[in-house]
């Protein structure tokens, strides 16, 4: 601070300026109503709040420009209402009803604070935005304007906006019927609007207010989920797509890592060869001991019948704990068929079958197998002879983890993201369908041909 410089010149701190009243009072030359000018010194035009007459208040003597005796429209936020938005108090001093040459009407409330200047509250009935006129023009980016490092996408182009109705005070000569050409550009949460006439170009940056914000400030309640979405309404799925996507990826990476750390299964705990035939009689074999040491493990039992042809082997397993007689049971079948038809040779089934037993505690076990072989007995088809090769090889091992568990986890983690993605897409499509430009980006990519 260089107050010192001023003091060196012998300039002491001056007394503060005397306080000023906030309002210039005048009476309407049209209807005699008393009007409070709230932005005295700035206000040029007043539309009388009682009769709608347009007054010129630029000079100390008030002039009646256009006399009206209108039924005054009731405003959602009455003139003179004060509200605090983002920490700053504002007073509603003017109201404009505008439209795109008679259609798509919207409303604009002029806000004033003597220390902050002017702002706008804009609504189309589905949401409210808070606008500030810029003192600089945006740069031009790839597809639209660029302001403060953010790109804006064109949304409404080459519009013609007209003023349909005015009430209150304004800092320029406002007139019903006044037209400007408009272009609107958006990014999520923000709209950048260009208004131009022959004389000047102005840019306004509007911020979408959430329902709570505008309700707390001015007591109006916008619809909570406007549909179709507003041009600059951020997709409610944006956050979950970004952060949720990261969470999902991190969890998936963790699960994969865990699966890898758990390692593969070890050496076979037991391998035995049992005799088998296709007579259909059940044989029983008891193999063991099998000792497993982890608190809980997955035990895989693989049956392999190398010579099996046109037959099946049913295998009933029971893994019985020698100490507790607790039994872990499963059923498997190895089956193999082959033949020849109009398409040529075919085979079906597998000579090998692995079954997995879950949650087997540490202990010493016997494996009891009831098994029986059967030949294919459909004599209407000229199959080759059924055969087994005579032996079934049983191999017991400790398996690492269920791949099915991992696949299930991946599906459970991805499914909501896929769902959110499609909800996001339909939100974006509905939003962009309101635009003069139509769908762009993903919303366009995922548009089917008959979908309009």
């Amino acid at each position: 601070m260089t107050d010192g410089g001023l003091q060196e010149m012998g300039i002491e701190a001056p007394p503060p300026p005397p306080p000023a009243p906030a309002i210039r009072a005048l009476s309407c030359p049209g209807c005699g109503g008393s009007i409070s000018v709230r932005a005295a010194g700035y206000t040029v035009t007043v539309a009388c709040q009682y009769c709608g007459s347009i007054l010129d208040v630029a000079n100390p003597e008030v002039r009646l420009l256009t006399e009206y005796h209108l039924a005054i429209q009731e405003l959602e936020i009455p003139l003179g209402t004060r509200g605090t938005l983002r920490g700053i108090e504002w007073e509603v001093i003017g109201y404009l009803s505008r439209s795109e040459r008679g259609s798509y009407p919207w409303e604009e409330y002029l806000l004033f604070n003597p220390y902050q200047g002017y702002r706008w509250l804009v609504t189309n009935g589905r949401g409210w935005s808070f606008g500030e006129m810029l003192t600089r023009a945006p740069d031009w980016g790839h597809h639209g304007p660029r302001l403060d490092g953010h790109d804006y996408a064109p949304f409404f182009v080459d519009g013609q906006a007209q003023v349909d109705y005015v009430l209150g005070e304004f800092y320029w000569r406002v007139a019903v019927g006044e037209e400007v050409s408009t272009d609107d550009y958006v990014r999520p949460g923000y709209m950048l609007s260009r208004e131009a006439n022959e004389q000047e170009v102005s840019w306004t940056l509007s911020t979408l207010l959430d329902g709570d914000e505008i309700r707390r400030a001015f007591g109006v309640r916008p619809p909570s989920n406007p549909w179709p979405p507003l041009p600059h309404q951020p997709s409610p799925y944006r956050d979950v797509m970004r952060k949720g996507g990261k969470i999902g990826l991190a969890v998936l990476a963790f699960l994969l890592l865990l699966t890898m750390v758990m390692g593969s299964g070890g050496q076979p705990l037991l391998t035995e060869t049992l005799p088998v035939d296709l007579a259909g009689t059940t044989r029983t074999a008891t193999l063991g001991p099998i000792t497993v040491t982890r608190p809980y493990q997955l035990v895989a039992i693989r049956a392999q019948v190398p010579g099996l042809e046109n037959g099946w082997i049913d295998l009933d397993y029971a893994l019985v704990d020698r100490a507790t007689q607790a039994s872990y049971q499963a059923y498997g079948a190895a089956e193999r068929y082959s033949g020849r038809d109009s398409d040529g040779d075919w085979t079906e089934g597998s000579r090998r079958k692995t079954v997995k037993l879950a949650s087997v505690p540490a202990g010493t076990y016997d494996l009891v197998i009831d098994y029986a072989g059967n030949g294919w007995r459909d004599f209407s088809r000229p199959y080759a002879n059924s055969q087994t090769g005579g032996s079934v090889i049983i191999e017991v091992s400790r398996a690492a983890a269920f791949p099915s568990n991992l696949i299930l986890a991946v599906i459970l983690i991805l499914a909501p993201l896929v769902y959110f993605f499609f909800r996001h897409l339909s939100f974006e499509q509905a939003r962009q369908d309101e635009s003069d430009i139509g769908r762009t980006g993903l919303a366009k990519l995922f548009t089917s041909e008959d979908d309009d």
Partner: protein
Amino acid sequence: MDRRTFLYGLWSLATAGLFVTSTIYAYSPFADGGRVAPRAGVYGPTHK
């Protein structure tokens, strides 16, 4: 973080938790077999 993201985070954690638990207990809903509850009643041969 919005509510939807928070719920999704919870969902992911729960899924991961279930996965870890099932890995520790070597459990899977897709296993071919598992513990069979011992039958109540008389053990041993039941023929006369």
